[in-house]
């Protein structure tokens, strides 16, 4: 995120006060850009989810028992992953709250916790994928496998990128480069992380729970 220069009070200054660039909308351009990106990401995941819905019962190749997702999923295990990601959303929100209050140390703790929880989620996904492959459902086994791995794989990549950003912000805070004046940076990243969580809410319900 770009550093903001200090200007005097001007018309159209952002809601974050005189330390942000003046914009024609009166709101942060970076934050608006993130919301636009998240709106566009809805289209990406909409495509992947609808493709999965269309293809999940259309497999004609591979073992018969691997053509029905209900035979493959371990709902209790995935439920734990869901709770982990949900809790990471809480710690991310707490990190944003902390940095807005000027509590850099607390923010750093919550950023690190969020990254750890995200890593646990990814670890769960990797374990789940490898167990499915061991049972015979690979990416090219049948169309169910392709659709499932593409959807959850894209989500996993989003989470992984988020973890990298979290670690980058953690290091920035250690070096004293993430203070209350950079609170918007944490807030904007928080929007991305919560979006990753709500996409999982959709995936968990549509892919795993609905038979």
């Amino acid at each position, binding site marked *: 995120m770009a550093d903001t220069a200090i200007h005097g009070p001007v018309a159209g200054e952002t809601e974050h006060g005189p330390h942000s660039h003046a914009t024609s909308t009166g709101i942060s351009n970076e934050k608006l850009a993130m*919301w636009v990106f998240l709106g566009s990401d809805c*289209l990406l995941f909409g*495509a992947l989810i609808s493709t999965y819905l269309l293809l999940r019962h259309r497999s004609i190749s591979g073992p018969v028992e691997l053509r029905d997702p209900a035979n493959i999923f371990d709902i209790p295990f995935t439920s734990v992953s869901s709770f982990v990601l949900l809790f990471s959303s809480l710690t991310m929100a707490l990190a944003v709250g902390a940095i807005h209050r000027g509590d850099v140390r607390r923010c750093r703790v919550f950023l690190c916790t969020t990254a750890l929880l995200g890593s646990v989620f990814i670890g769960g996904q990797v374990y789940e994928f490898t167990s499915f492959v061991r049972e015979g459902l690979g990416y090219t086994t049948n169309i169910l496998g392709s659709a499932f791995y593409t959807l959850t794989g894209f989500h996993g990549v989003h989470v992984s990128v988020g973890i990298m950003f979290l670690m980058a912000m953690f290091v920035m805070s250690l070096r004293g480069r993430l*203070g209350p004046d950079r609170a918007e940076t944490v807030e904007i990243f928080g929007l991305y992380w919560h979006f990753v969580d709500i996409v999982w809410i959709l995936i968990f319900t549509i892919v795993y729970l609905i038979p």
Partner: protein
Amino acid sequence: MSMAETEHKGAPLEPHHEAHQKTHPSDWTYIKVALVLGALTALEVSTYYWEKASTGALVAVLFPLMIIKFGVVVAYFMHLRYDNPLFRRVFVFGLLLAVVVYLVALTAMQFWTDGWSLI
């Protein structure tokens, strides 16, 4: 602790940060929201053990729960409830566009009549 962090921790919040802090939910609000989301998730997971429930009944329970959880995270964690309405419009536009486009796509692919049964 670095000098910069000490300065950040010791310095009083600037006016615009104070104003933003007043509109920002408290940590306890976030915790309450997370507890509600956890309870809703537990209810969702419990449907896995409803052996006698039909697919239609499960969809009727799971979809509203999914939408409620989605809305709660967007409103509270993503701060959309407290933020400038322009953010809400931008996100809702993208979301509605995705929903409409893919409902049309599913309909064009005969998803509702060809293999998907709600009863």
